[in-house]
């Protein structure tokens, strides 16, 4: 078992003919993901490594039965690409693109509320169910199939570090989800925590947060009430100065809210095993999940 993606996932790639799109599509294919279609407006009728390319998502989904879309479209056109997939009824949309304007994402989010689709990202590494399907840009080799741990994170390379340490301790993963570092995104911590809680194969959860917003606090409240599985937490940005955006558009401490200290306190209060030094997260997980 796994959450959101599995060996049955039929992937469509928006922006498949671009440099990034091509490279990462090949990586996903190599991993065993079933990539069934690509979309690049104006290049319909061609193919990329034998994968048929279409002008639009609706046509691509109709012709190939794609139920998941991965988006590599550049920021000025990315919100449009997400909306196109939403309108075509794609079940899972994974937006890798970094740097989408906030106003665009607010409109996407409002549309999302009115649809049944799920969006992961934007500005995220994607999602991987080790051994079954990779929908994203994460280095596949660091993962270990078979579970029993689910990983959810706001940051890309930080997730790789966590997964690397887990695998180093011989702890496998069910599914690893990067929800992205933008202030307005699709799937949040709570959605992932709920999915992991309901997944019988997932026995424990690692949640990786960072400064800014109140997603970690909301997640802590949810964990306290609804999550019975052990959770290890990490929050990046203890040393981040207020008022400065730390790379991610969403990672900013403003008006005294969104600090790492407050998030850590909330997580601890919810019974989460908080790791304060990232260097030790593998050891702490080995300890907690043993």
């Amino acid at each position, binding site marked *: 078992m796994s959450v959101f993606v599995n060996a049955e996932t039929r992937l469509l790639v928006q922006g498949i003919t671009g440099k990034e799109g091509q490279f990462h599509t090949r990586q996903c294919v190599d991993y065993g993901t079933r990539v069934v279609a690509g979309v690049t407006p104006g290049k319909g009728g061609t193919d990329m490594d034998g994968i048929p390319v279409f002008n639009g998502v609706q046509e691509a989904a109709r012709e190939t039965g794609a139920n998941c879309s991965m988006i590599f479209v550049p*920021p*000025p056109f990315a919100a449009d690409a997400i909306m196109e997939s939403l309108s075509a009824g794609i079940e899972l949309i994974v937006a890798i693109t970094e*740097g*989408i*304007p*906030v*106003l*665009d*994402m*607010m*409109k996407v*989010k*409002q*549309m999302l509320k009115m649809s049944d689709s799920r969006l992961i990202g934007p500005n995220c*590494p994607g999602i991987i169910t080790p051994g079954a399907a990779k929908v994203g*840009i*994460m*280095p596949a*080799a*660091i993962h270990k199939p078979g579970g029993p741990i689910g990983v959810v*994170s*706001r*940051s*890309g*390379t*930080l*997730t*790789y*570090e966590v997964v*690397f*340490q887990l695998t180093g301790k011989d702890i496998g993963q069910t599914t690893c989800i990067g929800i992205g*570092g933008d*202030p*307005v995104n699709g799937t949040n911590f709570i959605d992932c925590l709920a999915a992991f809680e309901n997944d019988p194969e997932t026995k424990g959860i690692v949640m*990786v947060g*960072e*400064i800014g*917003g*109140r997603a970690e606090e909301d997640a802590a409240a949810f964990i306290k009430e609804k999550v019975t599985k052990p959770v290890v937490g*990490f929050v*990046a*940005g*203890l*040393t*981040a*100065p207020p008022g*400065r955006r*730390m*790379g*991610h*558009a*969403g*990672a900013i401490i403003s*008006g005294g809210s969104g600090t*790492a200290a407050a998030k850590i306190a909330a997580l601890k209060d919810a019974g989460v095993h908080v790791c*304060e*030094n*990232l*260097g*030790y997260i593998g050891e702490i997980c080995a300890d907690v999940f043993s």
Partner: protein
Amino acid sequence: MKIHEFQAKQVFRKYQVPVPEGEVATTPAKAREVAAKMDRFPVVVKAQIHAGGRGKGGGVQLAHSLEEVETHAKAIIGMNLVTHQTGPEGKTVKQVLVEAGVDIEKELYLSLIPDRETASIMVIASQAGGMDIEEVAANTPEKIIKVYVNPLAGIQPFHCRNVCFGLNLPAPVMKEFTNLLKQLYQLFVENDCSLVEINPLVITRDKRVLALDAKMDFDDNAMFRHKDLLEFRDQDEEDPLDVEASKYNLNYINLDGTVGNMVNGAGLAMAVMDTIKLAGAEPANFLDVGGGATAEMVENGFKIILSDSKVKAILINIFGGILRCDVLAKGVVEAARNTKIHVPLVVRMEGTNVEEGRRILAESGLELFTAADMKSAGEIVAKIAAA
């Protein structure tokens, strides 16, 4: 991207948001000229820096004659203005806004910001304008009105009514205020603002609504569709090292510590900073070279770290995903040669092509410390920095 008050007021004028008559001046003589043209007193002379709290720091003065305008302008232009937002080092004032004084009956607060939780544009208003709004929000939250506008539908009359009645506005003012709020909303969405704030927004004795102050910030990610706004950028208001880094597409923030660091990915970069701190040292910067970093970007990152004289040691922590370790290693070797690196360097890398990367570093003849994992990386670099 932040802009100055006088620039924000130019944008206001374009959207028919009423502001007092005034003009910017870079010399006392020009300030006098502006005041002479308006030909009425009092006149306000306001320092133009990006930080708030200018009044308390002595950057806003009232003048009752042309002589006084000139005296105040002379005192303010060139002064080092320290406010709670500038930090202790302050900011040098280069220009003043000379503006007609206004007969104030009531001071309000009004702002628009994107609300990440609801994916709406949040209108914040308060009758308790003028003073420290953060204090009002903390101590008397009932005095703050919040109205959420769905960006798909845009601002509706009921939104405006909710703000008007919430502010207890007198009937004659409501129509003008409603127009202002609608215009402000248009301005906000058409320019991809991340903040529009008016504090105070005043009601004058003759029942006009006027934006006495103006603060505006824009979404950096949306600047590709607002080339016209880029001319408002004032690089003197930004940290010179930050400006340098932005030229190379690097995500850099200068901090106070002694351990320089270079990392790929913002979250991992923050975690590395924390690790440095937990090992007993202080990070000198935040530097995210990004997922698609090239050898050249790594080299430029190096140059920026090294130009910070506080730096006593450097930690490079790269988790190779898209950025391959061999590319990084080549960049490090190249940069170390070209920049004549003069501080100890600790490298920890992992991920794609790591063996090749390690080989390149080992064969480079460079004097560097390699760390097997993150925790030892932090410990080694902290020890070096403390020595």
